[in-house]
């Protein structure tokens, strides 16, 4: 096992005399190669998607992103409907999921006794483990009809004056898709928040309470301030997840071709449109337009992801002062 003693006849002995061990060099080389390959993979993904989208990028330019069109008959395409759908469903999901996630994390770290917190934490994590296609299955067969028959009429009864809640209730549309995304984001965001809250230095909290604040005031004043960048990162990560979800959204969003104001109406998102139409594009331009959608999706996911990381790293450094 150990190479005690120097054997001049052994292979690699010449190198070893100079302090270079063959095994080490090889191993390091292999590990380096793997790392280079991993980096190259990322570059390759970006390159492949962009080069496949290039014909559409060349044809339509950047205005593709804000053009509302998707007409295979006239062979003109634009991404606005899907960018709108992606952004609206994700923002609604975020607005609903963030306070819920923070509240759940607070419950688990501050309020619940340990015996209750552990199983509930496990349960919330198990929600994260539910595959998106299963949530979509539940969405089509159970949740969608419930939204159409119960939730949307109820919302319309007192919010019907608002164009967002006008129109006919439908089991496939922006609202069911946003709600399904909410269910998907909650476990991720609440897990990160829980980590953050449990890592808040106790002496900060105790100090605040010693000064006479109630527990909620201490949480609001100290814990949130301490965890704010982390929460922002968690929100961004949840947002990135919501942007990228294609399957469950495709199952409940209704595949519309144009933008409708009402949240009840069918819509479509970037990922969902790609999943629905990529395999059956009628022309090369449609195929590369769909890939252009993929490129847009990749870019916005990357941006939110990188933003989240920048925030985490930036504030990790400043937090080290504690």
């Amino acid at each position, binding site marked *: 096992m150990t190479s005690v003693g120097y054997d001049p006849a052994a292979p690699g002995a010449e190198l070893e005399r100079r302090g270079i061990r063959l095994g080490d060099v090889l191993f390091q080389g*292999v590990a380096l190669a793997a790392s280079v390959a*991993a980096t190259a*993979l990322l570059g390759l993904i970006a390159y492949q998607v962009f080069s496949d989208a290039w014909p559409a990028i060349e044809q339509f330019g950047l205005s593709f992103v804000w053009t509302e069109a998707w007409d295979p008959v006239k062979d003109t395409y634009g991404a606005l409907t899907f960018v709108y759908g992606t952004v609206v469903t994700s923002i609604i999901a975020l607005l609903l999921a963030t306070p819920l996630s923070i509240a759940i994390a607070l419950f688990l770290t501050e309020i619940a006794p340990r015996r209750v917190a552990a199983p509930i934490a496990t349960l919330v994590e198990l929600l994260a483990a539910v595959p998106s296609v299963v949530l*979509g299955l539940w969405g089509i067969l159970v949740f969608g009809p419930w939204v159409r028959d119960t939730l949307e009429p109820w919302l319309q009864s007192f919010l019907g004056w608002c164009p967002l809640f006008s129109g006919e209730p439908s089991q496939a549309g922006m609202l069911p898709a946003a709600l399904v995304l909410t269910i998907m984001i*909650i476990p991720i965001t609440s897990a990160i928040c829980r980590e953050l809250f449990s890592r808040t230095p106790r002496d900060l909290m105790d100090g605040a309470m010693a000064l006479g604040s109630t527990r909620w005031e201490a949480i609001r004043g100290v814990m949130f301030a301490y965890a704010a960048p982390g929460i922002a990162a968690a929100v961004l990560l949840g947002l990135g997840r919501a942007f990228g979800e294609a399957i469950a959204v495709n199952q409940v969003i209704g595949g519309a071709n144009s933008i409708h104001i009402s949240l009840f109406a069918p819509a479509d998102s970037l990922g969902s449109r790609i999943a629905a139409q990529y395999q059956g594009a009628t022309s090369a331009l449609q195929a590369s337009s769909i890939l252009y959608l993929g490129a847009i999706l990749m870019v916005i996911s990357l941006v939110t992801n990188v933003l989240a*990381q920048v925030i985490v790293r930036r504030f990790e450094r400043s937090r080290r002062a504690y």
Partner: protein
Amino acid sequence: MTTIPSDDRYDITVRSAGLRRRKLTEKAYAGLAVASAVIAVAILALVLGTVIHRGLSALSLDFFTKPRPLFGQAGGIADALVGSALIVGMAMVMAIPFSILVAIFMSEYAGPRLSVALRIVLDVLNGVPAIVVGIFVFGLLVVGRGQSAIFGAFSLAVLMLPMVARATQEVLEIVPRSLREASLALGVTRWRTTVSIVLPTAIGGILTGVVIAVARVAGETAPLLFTSSIAANQVSTDVTHALPTLPVSIFVFSESPDPNEQAMGWAAALVLILFVLVLNIVAKVVAARQRRRSEGA
């Protein structure tokens, strides 16, 4: 901290007129927090409960032994089970050694700057949506060659790589430097140190990372739609062609108007959820053991 009776007459803390209101606010927010947790648990119970309730009724021996049905016939998920097992298995073989090597490079050989750069690369890879990975593998491999289970496995491996690599790297960093230094001091080569000393110490965490990654990709549908969705309605182990998989089958069943196919969708979802849940529980147990072991040591 002793609790003083909240009678304001004996309140020796700072007399603020709003104390009652502040306490009410405290109670209100606590109530909201509890309600949120209840909502989360309720949603989970709802989803899981529906899957179990509707899925159980469709479970039968036929379900596990017959392949997917053709139009208007009865069937099961035997072919999808075999296909999923093969594809996930191949994805593990492709991803795990690769990920571990990357993690080793990051923790053992790379300088701090390079390590951070690689960490960023992995985190960015982690954030690439599964459907983008799907169209990437489609454009790179499937076009001109046809779908195959191997390409499907490759797309899942791409998804697994950042998860396993980051988990491994984090665990490797926890291994105390003194362990490595002692081994090197004894004359063990650097690579042997890593392979025989550092890795085995970290194996619990690596296993946890692997199990969680497998649980995640076992349910991924989008990449498989592009790489392994045109498959025969029969049990096959030919990995050079596309194989049916559990997530894609669920996806197809979910859109069907046929109540029999919908029932099969629920049952398949039940099988998938059980598999994923079991894996998550295994990961937790292993992680807890690891923690106990390192705390006790």
